[in-house]
């Protein structure tokens, strides 16, 4: 169904390879395709930011922070920039909400749902796999469950968000053109943990 609605996600062709490189006891890697992603730019000190926070049901977090509502994760990417991540199909609704709350104040709302895809890396070895190409300290003492970061992973840029559900994990947002490279790199990095 999803593919009918959305076409082909950047890592559809790597789905089997990612599954094959995953092992429940060590690390699991899978694409999380088609999430709604909307960039928001607004002055965090202004009334518009407050209106947006109220409309979303979560105050806009500072840089590196993540605020979550039932449907949406709000990632603080910079002093006046956020990435809102919602369920499939929610992009237009999110844009409408944001645009309405912005109410012609200076800001920007841009649909970037297809610009990046998301790769989930989870399991006990997730941190070790990522740290083969990511220089950030991903220790839970430092990169806690409400943190995100824009950084380099291997030789591409990415947004990292901690995504602990049942087990420790991360969402890695990667630009669609780099997605296969990142997937291949992750498969290689996870190889020693057996898949």
């Amino acid at each position, binding site marked *: 169904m999803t593919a009918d609605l959305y076409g082909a996600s950047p890592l559809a062709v790597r789905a089997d390879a990612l599954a094959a490189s995953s092992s429940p006891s060590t690390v699991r890697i899978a694409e999380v395709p088609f999430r709604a992603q909307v960039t928001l730019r607004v002055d965090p000190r202004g009334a518009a930011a407050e209106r947006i926070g109220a409309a979303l049901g979560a105050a806009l977090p500072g*840089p*590196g922070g993540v605020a979550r509502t039932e449907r949406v994760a709000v990632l603080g*990417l*910079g*002093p006046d*920039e956020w990435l809102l991540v919602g369920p499939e199909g929610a992009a237009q609704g999110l844009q409408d909400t944001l645009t309405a709350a912005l109410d012609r104040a200076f800001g920007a709302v841009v649909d970037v749902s297809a610009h990046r895809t998301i790769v989930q890396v989870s399991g006990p070895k997730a941190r070790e796999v990522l740290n083969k190409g990511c*220089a*950030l300290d991903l220790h839970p003492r430092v990169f806690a469950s409400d943190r995100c*970061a*824009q*950084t*380099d992973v291997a030789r591409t*840029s990415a947004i990292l968000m901690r995504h602990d559900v049942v087990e420790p994990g991360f969402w890695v947002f990667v630009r669609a053109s780099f997605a296969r490279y990142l997937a291949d790199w992750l498969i290689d990095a996870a190889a020693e943990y057996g898949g």
Partner: protein
Amino acid sequence: MMLIPCPWCGPRNETEFHYGGQAGVAYPRDPQALSDAEWAQFLFFRDNPKGVFAERWMHRSGCRRWFDLRRDTATNEILGAGAHEEQERTVSV
């Protein structure tokens, strides 16, 4: 590997940044009013001290914000950073 304090993302490896040269060199208010020599001065001439230097950096792999940094070019000691708009211009043409 310098650890550069991005005012927004915190300390990161220097490989995440783009270097922007001397800080505080303002774009002239009216370029057409400058002589050729003055314009060339703005375009091509920058300080290159051994010691403390106020310089521009941009967090390319992170928030993509420009900021100024004071760094000792001989030791790489970083003496302070701040968001660009909060810093004063010290040099102008």
